[in-house]
């Protein structure tokens, strides 16, 4: 069951890099499984790729907003098995690429060995309909097994690049990167920020200068407004990733789901307008 990879299809077009892309991030199962699925259906028209967090109990790269979303999802009963079922349900109506973000430990449990668990978990995620994966605590140095099984199951393993990533490591990462690269726009954990750092501009320039193949650059971490988004695409980002600011909308409206969906749609449509 090696479906085509929707990320690679999306960027295969030779004019693909003329376009700008929006990938919102939500934690799978936040605030509840049913509401989550319903929200995806509502925001579908305004987004290009969907990024889903599969919660881990100890997410060291995430700020308080995502941590709280994880807690809500855990309370709603999320785990790997439920997440797989949820993605399958989303796939009944959602045709665009899906990327999951998780931590390595979530992927290496369930079978006899770490390697067989990784093989098995990635196969099950692929069968559920995902196209790419971001592993927040897996640097290129430890990614050998993950690369092997992502290749086997035709999943794009998406690497993170930070402002602090040195040139020699950047080259190693770009050599293995598939789909797109995820550039961390700030020095820090996830979470909405008020300003875009100057450092971002330099990092985009530096990464672009190293890219030899035609791989898009997506920016994430700290982006919270349409103004941020348009500034970053002007600086050369091909795609924008927004998580915490989306989750803030959920958090603000926990008692009123209709309003939550309405505000979420307004937010994604404002980002979509800002970059296209």
């Amino acid at each position: 069951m090696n479906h085509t990879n929707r990320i690679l299809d999306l960027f295969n077009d030779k004019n693909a890099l003329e376009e700008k892309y929006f990938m919102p991030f939500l934690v799978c199962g936040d605030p509840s499984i049913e509401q989550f699925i319903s929200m995806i259906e509502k925001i579908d028209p305004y987004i290009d790729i969907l990024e889903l967090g599969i919660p881990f109990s100890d997410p060291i790269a995430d700020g308080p907003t995502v941590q709280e979303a994880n807690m809500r999802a855990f309370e709603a009963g999320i785990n790997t098995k439920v997440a797989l079922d949820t993605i399958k349900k989303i796939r009944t109506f959602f045709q665009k690429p899906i990327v999951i973000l998780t931590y390595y430990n979530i992927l290496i449990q369930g079978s006899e060995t770490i390697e067989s668990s990784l093989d098995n978990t990635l196969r099950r995620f692929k069968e559920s309909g995902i196209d790419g994966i971001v592993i927040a605590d897996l640097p290129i140095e430890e990614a050998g097994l993950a690369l092997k099984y992502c290749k086997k199951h035709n999943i794009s393993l998406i690497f993170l690049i930070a402002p602090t990533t040195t040139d020699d490591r950047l080259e190693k990462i770009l050599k293995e990167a598939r789909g797109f690269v995820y550039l961390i726009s700030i020095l820090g954990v996830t979470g909405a920020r008020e300003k875009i750092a100057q450092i971002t501009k330099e990092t985009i320039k530096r990464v672009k200068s190293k890219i030899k193949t035609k791989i898009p650059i997506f920016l994430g971490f700290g982006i919270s407004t349409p103004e941020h988004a348009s500034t970053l695409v002007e600086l050369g980002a091909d795609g924008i990733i927004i998580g915490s600011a989306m989750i803030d909308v959920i958090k603000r409206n926990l008692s009123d789901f209709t309003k939550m969906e309405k505000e979420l749609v307004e937010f994604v449509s404002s980002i979509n307008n800002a970059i296209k």
Partner: protein
Amino acid sequence: MKYSGRYPNKCGKFGDFGGIFAPEVLMPALNELTEAFEKYRNDESFKKEFYQILESYGGRPTPLFYAKRLSEDVGCKVYLKREDLLHGGAHKLNNVIGQALLAKKMGKTKLVAETGAGQHGFATAIAGAYFGMETKVFMGEVDIARQAYNVYRMQLLGAEVIPVKIGSKTLKDAINDGLRYWITNVRDTHYLMGSVVGPHPYPLLVREFQRVIGIETKKQIMELEGRLPNAIIACIGGGSNAIGIMYDFIEDENVQLIGVEAAGEGLETGKHSIALGLGRRGVLHGSLMYLLQNEYGNILKTHSISAGLDYPGVGPEHCFLKELTRLRVETATDNETLASFQKLSVIEGIIPALESSHALACLEKIKGEFNKDDIVIINLSGSGSKDLNIIKQRMEFKVK
């Protein structure tokens, strides 16, 4: 067995264990730390400065004390390595002086650390004051409540104690938040890891700074007895006091190395911290190790009467030594620990930390294995003065 100098390898691996499972933002800082450590670990002037501080400021060497009455009681020769007498009241000082000195050489101006029992946070606050470095200590709210005295001591030393309000609000969550802080402030800040856990190079450098315990112990026991001990017993939370005393004995195959994990309220209750004994392989806080986790890979809440052992994982080198069958793993419950705590206080006039009392409790359980001339060394890793509130509550409760 040839062991020394082979582990970890260049990638930070002890067999399959260890490694660098860290967010990308931290990778340059970890690589920088590895480079600095490799540069200074064999630098004579660095080593000299390190030992000189531990001697003149810390009180090294600590005594290896023949516990005569305890020996008579258990029926073998028991020696206590008195790390409780080190400045700060625990072995933690060795590590913080080493890391803070290294950080200073690297040009870092700030220290950030996590703490469970408060011992490592207190030690970090001492190092921060000694070296004039701004210090922040992340501590779970649950731990803050049970270690109020240590919080106050850290504050007296000028450190800022930051409460961690998420997750189980204990050590593992303090590490999470400490690492998050470091991710955001990586340029001028050194993350001072308190145990032999975390991504490479931490398990290596913490071990190297704690090795002084075992090096001294070996010299002292040869002077006192003219032979090596039959066994060394140490408690294991993250595992720094255990690896510290054991490392220089790994190749002495006739010396049993026994690590004691916290069985909490008992195996059957699920309220324990037996990561080596009952955990499954997984990745937490940057390192592959045995972990207490559910079937989906989420980390379980752990329990121990001693905050310092209340951790769902265990250092990668211990995992590897267990796999090599070089390390024997035992457990002690809260109640067994309290009984041994009380016994040592009464018969030797030494109030041990609850952590170290696990090692004493283990000896009590396996004393039948030793003859009267056998030598057992216990790493008395810390003083119990920090635990008096908990002891008082528990002992009164027992009397009722």
